[in-house]
C-alpha cells in the first residue's frame, strides 16, 4: 500500500525559515495571514489530502473515467471527495474575496497544491483547471460577466476548462479553426471541435464554463486573429438558475498513459452561445494570463509526484531486506540487510530528496515573488518581482516536471521488480508524471520561451533579477568557512551560466537555430544553478538554526543533502554547459533525409 504524509515540517522551513514568510503580512491585503492562521490551514489541507484524496489515487487510476450516453463519469468516490473539497472552501483558497474567495497568498496555495498533487494528481486537475479559468475571467472579463459567472466558479459549484487545442493545432494556435459568429444580443455562436480538453466534461459540478479560443469573421490570420470566449455547458438564466443544454457536447474521452482519473475530452461546440472575454483578437493575451500561472501549477505537479515517490521509496528501502552491506553486516538479526545500506540505493534516494526539496524551495520562492508582484505598494518592486516570475516560470515548469519524472523513475528503480508491479503503486507516478513534461507547453517550448522571449526582453532586464542577487550572495558568502563548500560549486556553475547566456544571446542573434538548439541544455544549466543557489541558502539557514538551538536532525539532514547536491548532482551543469558551448551545428547540419 502506497503511503503519503504531507511534508509539513519542510514546508514550514521553506515558507518561514528560508523565504521569510512572516513578512508576508506586510503586503496590503495579507495582514491576516500570519503564522497562526497559515499553519492550521496547512495542517487541515494535509489531513484532507492524506485522508480523502490519497485513498482514491490508486482506485481512480485503475477505474479511470467513462463516457456513456454522452455523459462523463469520474471514478468511484471522486464526486464525494470533490464535495468535501468544495465544502471545505479549498476551491477558492487564493481567489479574490470580492468574488467569495479566501484571498490567501500564492505561496500558501502553492504548498497546498503540492499536497493535492502528491495525494492525487488526477483529482487536482478538476479544481486546477477551474482556477485557470477563474484567473482569465477575473482579469479580462467584463463586470457583467464576472458578476454572473465568477461567484459560482469560485465556490466550486461550477467548474472551468481551457479549450485551446484542436485536432490539427496544439503548439501553434494560430491555426485555430473554431469560429464565433456574432448574434444580435451581443453574444456569439461558437462552432468547432477542441481536443485534449482536461476536465472537459465530468459529473462533479452542475455546470462547466469553457474558455474557448476561436476566430471571429474577418479576423486577421494567425494568432493575432484569435479571441477568447466563455461558453457554458448549460445555459444560465439571469436568476442564476442552470437551464438547458447549450450545444456543448463531449464527443469522446482519451485513453491515456497516466492521470487516468482526469477526463481528457474531445469537445464539440455546435453553435453554442458564448460571450467575449477581453477584446476581440486579443484572445492570446488573455489566455497567457492563465497559462503563466498554469505553468507554475504544472511545475508544482512535478514536485508533488517527486515527493510522494520519494516517501514510498524510502519506506520500501527501510523495509526490504536483500544482500549484505559491502562494509559488513548491518542487521545481524535478519536474513539480510535493508537495501537502504547499499550505496547505489542511497544515491537514488538522495537524488530524489535533493531534487524534491530543492524544487520546493525554488517554487515557494517564485510564488512569494508572485505575491510581491501583485501586492507590493511600490510599482518598481512589483515590476522587479514580475520580471523574476516571468523569467523563472519556464525554468520551473520544464525543470521541475523533468525532475518529477526522473524522481518517479528512480522511485520505481528502488523497488526493483516490485516497482514495475501495479499494486505497489510506484509505477503510477511515472505514468502520471509523464504528461507534466508535455502539457501547458512542452518542455521544449518552455526552453524556447526562455531563450527567445524572456532572455532578450527589455535588454535582459529579467535576467538581472536572477543574476544580481545570486552574484551578491556568492560574493558575501564565498569566504565563509562553513558555507564555502556550498558557495564555491555554486559560483562555478554561475560563471558558466553567465558564459552560456552570452553565447546563446550572441549566437541566437546571428542564427535563431543556434539559440533553439541550445535552449534545452541552457534551461537545464539555468535550473541547476537556481537549485544550487537554493541549496546553499538552505545550508546557511540550517547552520544558523543549529548555532542558535543546538543539535536537530532536521537541519543536519538539510546540510547533508546540500552537500550531496553540490557533490553529485550539480556536476551535470558542466555537461550542459559543454553542450551549449558546442553550438548547434551537429544538430542542424544532419541531413533531413538521413533521419
Amino acid at each position, binding site marked *: 500500500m502506497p503511503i503519503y504524509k504531507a511534508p509539513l515540517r519542510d514546508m514550514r522551513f521553506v515558507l518561514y525559515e528560508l523565504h521569510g514568510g512572516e513578512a508576508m503580512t506586510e503586503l496590503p491585503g495579507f495582514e491576516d495571514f500570519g503564522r*497562526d492562521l497559515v499553519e*492550521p*490551514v496547512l495542517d487541515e489541507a494535509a489531513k484532507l489530502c492524506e485522508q480523502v484524496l490519497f485513498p482514491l489515487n490508486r482506485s481512480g487510476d485503475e477505474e479511470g473515467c467513462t463516457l456513456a450516453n454522452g455523459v462523463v463519469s469520474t471514478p468511484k468516490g471522486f464526486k464525494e471527495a470533490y464535495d468535501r473539497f468544495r465544502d471545505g472552501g479549498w476551491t477558492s483558497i487564493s481567489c479574490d474575496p470580492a468574488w467569495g474567495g479566501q484571498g490567501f497568498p500564492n505561496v500558501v496555495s502553492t504548498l497546498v497544491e503540492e499536497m493535492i498533487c502528491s495525494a492525487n494528481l488526477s483529482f487536482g486537475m478538476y479544481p486546477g483547471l477551474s482556477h485557470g479559468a477563474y484567473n482569465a475571467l477575473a482579469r479580462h472579463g467584463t463586470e457583467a460577466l464576472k458578476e454572473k459567472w465568477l461567484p459560482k466558479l469560485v465556490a466550486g459549484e461550477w467548474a472551468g476548462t481551457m479549450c485551446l487545442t484542436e485536432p490539427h493545432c496544439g503548439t501553434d494556435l494560430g491555426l485555430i479553426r473554431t469560429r464565433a459568429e456574432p448574434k444580435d444580443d451581443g453574444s456569439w455562436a461558437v462552432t468547432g471541435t477542441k481536443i485534449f480538453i482536461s476536465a472537459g466534461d465530468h459529473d462533479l459540478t452542475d455546470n462547466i464554463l469553457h474558455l474557448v479560443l476561436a476566430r471571429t469573421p474577418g479576423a486577421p490570420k494567425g494568432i493575432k486573429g484569435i479571441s477568447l470566449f466563455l461558453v457554458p455547458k448549460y445555459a444560465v438564466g439571469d436568476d442564476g438558475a442552470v437551464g438547458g443544454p447549450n450545444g456543448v457536447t463531449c464527443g469522446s474521452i482519451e485513453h491515456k498513459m497516466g492521470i487516468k482519473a482526469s477526463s481528457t475530452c474531445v469537445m464539440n461546440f455546435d453553435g453554442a452561445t458564448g460571450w467575449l472575454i477581453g477584446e476581440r483578437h486579443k484572445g492570446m493575451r488573455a489566455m497567457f494570463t492563465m497559462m503563466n500561472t498554469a505553468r507554475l501549477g504544472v511545475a508544482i505537479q512535478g514536485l508533488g509526484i517527486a515527493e510522494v515517490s520519494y516517501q514510498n521509496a524510502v519506506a520500501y528501502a527501510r523495509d526490504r531486506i536483500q544482500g549484505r552491506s559491502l562494509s559488513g553486516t548491518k542487521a545481524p538479526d535478519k536474513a539480510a540487510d535493508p537495501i537502504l545500506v547499499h550505496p547505489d540505493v542511497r544515491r537514488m534516494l538522495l537524488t530524489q530528496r535533493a531534487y524534491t526539496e530543492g524544487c520546493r524551495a525554488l517554487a515557494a520562492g517564485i510564488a512569494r515573488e508572485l505575491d510581491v508582484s501583485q501586492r507590493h505598494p511600490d510599482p518598481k518592486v512589483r515590476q522587479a518581482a514580475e520580471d523574476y516570475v516571468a523569467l523563472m516560470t519556464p525554468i520551473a515548469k520544464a525543470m521541475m516536471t523533468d525532475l518529477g519524472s526522473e524522481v518517479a523513475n528512480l522511485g520505481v528503480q528502488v523497488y526493483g521488480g516490485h516497482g514495475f508491479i501495479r499494486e505497489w503503486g510506484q509505477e503510477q507516478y511515472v505514468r502520471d508524471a509523464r504528461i507534466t513534461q508535455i502539457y501547458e507547453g512542452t518542455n521544449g517550448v518552455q526552453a524556447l520561451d526562455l531563450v527567445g522571449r524572456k532572455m532578450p526582453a527589455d535588454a535582459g532586464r529579467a535576467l538581472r533579477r536572477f543574476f544580481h542577487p545570486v552574484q551578491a550572495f556568492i560574493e558575501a558568502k564565498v569566504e565563509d568557512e562553513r558555507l564555502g563548500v556550498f558557495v564555491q560549486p555554486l559560483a562555478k556553475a554561475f560563471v558558466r551560466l553567465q558564459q552560456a547566456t552570452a553565447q546563446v544571446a550572441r549566437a541566437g542573434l546571428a542564427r535563431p537555430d543556434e539559440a533553439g538548439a541550445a535552449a534545452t541544455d541552457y534551461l537545464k544549466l539555468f535550473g541547476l544553478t537556481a537549485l544550487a543557489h537554493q541549496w546553499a541558502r538552505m545550508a546557511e539557514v540550517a547552520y544558523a538554526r543549529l548555532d542558535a538551538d543546538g543539535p536537530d536532525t*532536521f537541519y543536519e539532514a538539510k546540510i547533508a543533502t546540500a552537500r550531496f547536491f553540490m557533490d553529485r548532482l550539480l556536476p551535470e551543469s558542466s555537461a550542459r554547459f559543454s553542450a551549449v558551448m558546442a553550438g548547434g551545428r551537429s544538430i542542424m547540419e544532419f541531413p533531413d533525409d538521413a533521419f
Partner: protein
Amino acid sequence: MKILVPVKRVVDYNVKIRVKPDGSGVDLANVKMSMNPFDEIAVEEAIRLKEKGVATEIVVVSIGPAQAAETLRTALAMGADRGLLVKVEGAVEPLAVAKILKGVVEAEKPGLVILGKQAIDDDCAQTGQMLAALTGYAQGTFASKIAVEGETLAVTREVDGGLQSVVLTLPAIVTTDLRLNEPRYASLPNIMKAKKKPIAESVAADWGVDPAPRLEVLTTREPPVRKAGVKVASVADLVSKLKNEAGVI
C-alpha cells in the same frame, strides 16, 4: 443549552513515539502535536447537537501549555463558539484536570459536558468519571450514541458484553467512544473565522487548584522488542511448547 467540551493537546496519533534516552519520559521535542482524537469526536458531537438546534453555545476548554491555544483554535475552526485556556506547565494528572473542570462547570453552568473517553498519550480514561464524582452529575461513559430527550439524555454505551442503554438526567457528563461519529474537516472559511473567536486565559490557581503531580514517574521504557516467531511442525509440538516453554497451559 450550553455544551462544555474539554480538549487536550497530545502527540499526534501518526507520530512514532520515542522514549527519552534517560528514561525520564517521552521525547516531545519537535514532535507534531494535535487534538486528542477522542476529544475531536466530542467537539463534533457538540457541533451536531448545535446544528440540530439542541445546543445554543459550545465552549471548549483546554488545560495545558500556552500552545494548547492552537488546539482550542482547531476546535473553534470545527465550529465551537469560544475557548477557555487554563495554562499549566508540565504534566497534569486527571484529578487536577477534573478539579479545574469542576470550577469551570460551576462558572459556565453547561447542560452537558462531553469529553473524550481517554487521551491517547497517557490512556488514563479517568477525567470524565472524576468530574462526574466531583460535580455529582450523572455520567454516561464510552458513548457510541447520544440523544437529548427533553430533560434527559439517552446514551448508548460500549461495554465489554455489547451495548448498554442508559438514560441520564441533565445536566450530565458524557465520554465519547470511537463509533459516536466521524469528526468533520474544518473548512477554510471557518479556520479564518476561528482566528477571531475569543479565547479567555487563566491559570490553575484562578480555579483554586494546585496542579502539581501527585504521582512520581520512576522510569519510562520502550516496550520490549517482539522476538521473531518459529514455525511448529505439528499440533503436538505447539501444545508442548505452550506447556513447557511458554508455560501458559
